[in-house]
């Protein structure tokens, strides 16, 4: 296999991590919706936590994206 093709494949493989991130973000927001539906009064406190969890999970996606960019463009 020549290097250019392997680079493209490697970048593609690097972003497989996004599958886990998708599951994680889905989990976070499903839990957020459930908890707000059960106790709407807690919305203000729970919402901040949910957003924090979203940002921390999204960071994993961006690490993968960063690796993909590094593989592609360096």
């Amino acid at each position, binding site marked *: 296999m020549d290097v250019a093709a392997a680079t493209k494949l490697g970048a593609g493989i690097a972003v497989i991590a996004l599958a886990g991130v998708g599951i994680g973000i889905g989990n976070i927001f499903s839990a957020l919706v459930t908890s707000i539906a059960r106790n709407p009064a807690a919305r203000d406190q729970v919402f901040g936590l949910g957003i924090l969890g979203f*940002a921390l999970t999204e960071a994993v996606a*961006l690490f993968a994206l960063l690796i993909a960019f590094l593989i592609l463009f360096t």
Partner: protein
Amino acid sequence: MAGPTASWLTFTQANIIMVIGAGLVLWLLYYGAKPRAVVPGRLQAAAELSHDFIYRMAIDQIGPEGKAYFPFVFTLFFFVLMGNLLGLIPFSFTYTSHIAVTAALALMVIVIVTIVALREHGLKFFTYFFPDGAPVFLAPLIVPIEVISYLSRPVSLSIRLFANMVAGHVMFAVFASFVVMLGGASILGAVGAAFPLAINVVLMGFELLVAALQAYVFAILTCIYLHDAVHLH
């Protein structure tokens, strides 16, 4: 002529935006706090809301001791927020999209957190790496894990902000290049170019959200680390 060291120290575009951002925050706080009206006007309300928002965050996360660290968190939040927001202005520059800037900020946070922890607890700080109640024979396993997770904090803190900003701006660039490519193709392509342009407009709204969110995350993680430093667990 500048010497070999001084020739590196050029005043770059990033520095200009940093100065503008810091100036904007100072302007908001100075002219926002100036009227001292009981019923605040818009500018005063903005200044008071931003103050109260970060103040409540610091107190909620760190505890009553958070009052002492509030100015630090406030400065960090607004420096990052201004970097993210000013970077969204076309032809501007996002200094938080440089790993050098975010890594410097994250290292500063972690050094300050460690100093705070050492000042508050002295050498008892090192019990942080071994949780209470854990079986002693697990120490060879737990202590390295805790040390590594402590040391990886600045890495994740800096890369999160940097990668968010870079990814957002790369998305802009990708869709903008679609506009150029389609626009150059034919008449039909020029009509089709409206779609990536529309996506870019939507992305701008999304990036405004991300800019505020990442500044918030940076500040709240700093608060959480400070909480660990002040309370040890």
